[in-house]
């Protein structure tokens, strides 16, 4: 999985890192954080998407080898959250790229992320 942080307040990003810790250990399900989007099967999008990072998100999505699963993490990633009426806001992630999985919460608990991912795997 590759982690794309939009204009995030970093809280979701920290909770994502929690998934890698001994307590939650997402490697149980065979998932690792990778450095290059070319190696990724999952694209995590956190934070509200504003006019600046919209083009960057599109570019990262186009660079990922398909099929790629896009996961919007957190209230801002799913809907825009408290930034939804902001001046520079350019739509939540699913207006820019197709999103497969929404994990709401501000920030979502690591348990919620794992539950969402396991549900998606078993789908």
């Amino acid at each position: 999985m590759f982690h794309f942080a939009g204009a995030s307040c970093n809280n979701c990003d920290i909770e994502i890192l929690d998934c890698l810790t001994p307590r939650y250990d997402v490697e149980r399900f065979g998932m690792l954080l990778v450095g290059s989007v070319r190696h990724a099967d999952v694209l995590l999008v956190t934070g509200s998407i504003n006019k600046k990072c919209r083009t960057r998100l599109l570019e990262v999505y186009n660079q990922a080898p398909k099929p790629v699963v896009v996961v919007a993490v957190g209230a801002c990633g799913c809907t825009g959250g408290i930034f939804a009426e902001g001046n520079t806001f350019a739509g939540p992630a699913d207006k820019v790229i197709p999103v497969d999985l929404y994990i709401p919460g501000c920030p979502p608990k690591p348990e919620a992320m794992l539950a969402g991912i396991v549900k998606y795997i078993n789908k």
Partner: protein
Amino acid sequence: MLRDIFYFLIFPGLLFAFAGGGFLSWFDRKVTARLQFRVGPPLLQPFYDCIKLFGKETIIPADSAQGLFFLSPVFAVAGAVLSCVLILLPAFGMTSGFAGDIIVVFYLLMIPSLSYIIGAIASGNPLAGLGASREMKLIIGYELSLLLVVAAVIMKAGHSLSLHEIIAIQQQQGAFIWSLSGILLFIVAMMCVQAKLAFVPFDIADAETEIAGGIFIEYSGTILAMVKIAKSVMLLALPSFVAVLLLGGLYFYGIHIFWSILKILGVVLLITLVRNTNPRLTTGQSMRFFFIWMNLIAVVAIVMTYIGW
């Protein structure tokens, strides 16, 4: 001819080496996870990863040298599998048919690293270029140390250049590691293996946190799967090489099967422990480490071998 193709593709070549290497890379990941008090991946995870990668889109960057970019992982797999075959054939009691095979294995073991460099430069990505230059420096560092180890082992084996004879001599006299020089050589060999596998103190070429995957940054889909296969085959080939050179060789009959597997697992366990307890060295530090310390230890070991310790 047909038999050679069988050796190369099925046993102990591509299929067997990939199965063994995949198991070893699972072992490495599992031990890493246990060391960090995590649960770790399921047994078949490396194989799932490879099968999944074969089904994914393969992106070839527009500004890359496309043929080279695509072919270099194939060369890497070929080199890794060939070296694995030549190392494992004597272990199964079959002579590989010529006298100087230790030299050939030594050069074949270098082919994967060289083809990663070529592929990285061909990809046209600046971070990959940076990774390639680091990998090149690392090769310059460890290759001399490994050559000194091989030279010392050849001296110990009474100037025999054949892996089969080296194993046979160790069978008569006991493994080479049971001497003072043998222990020193084992230390140097382990460090060289660590660098060849690009595991943590020496993973400057594909440092994920600094240069985002480095030499492998542009690989995706099928060719990334080839890279993974080459890496896992090397994870079998290099510990076997160390076991053949210093730990008394590998035999695959009777109770010896158990001991041989234990030797390989032990070497991989050591590599994993070193990898999990060390931070990444910089390029200069790792070159200094090999040029000064490892070469010094290897030369001391050669002198001790000459005296007969």
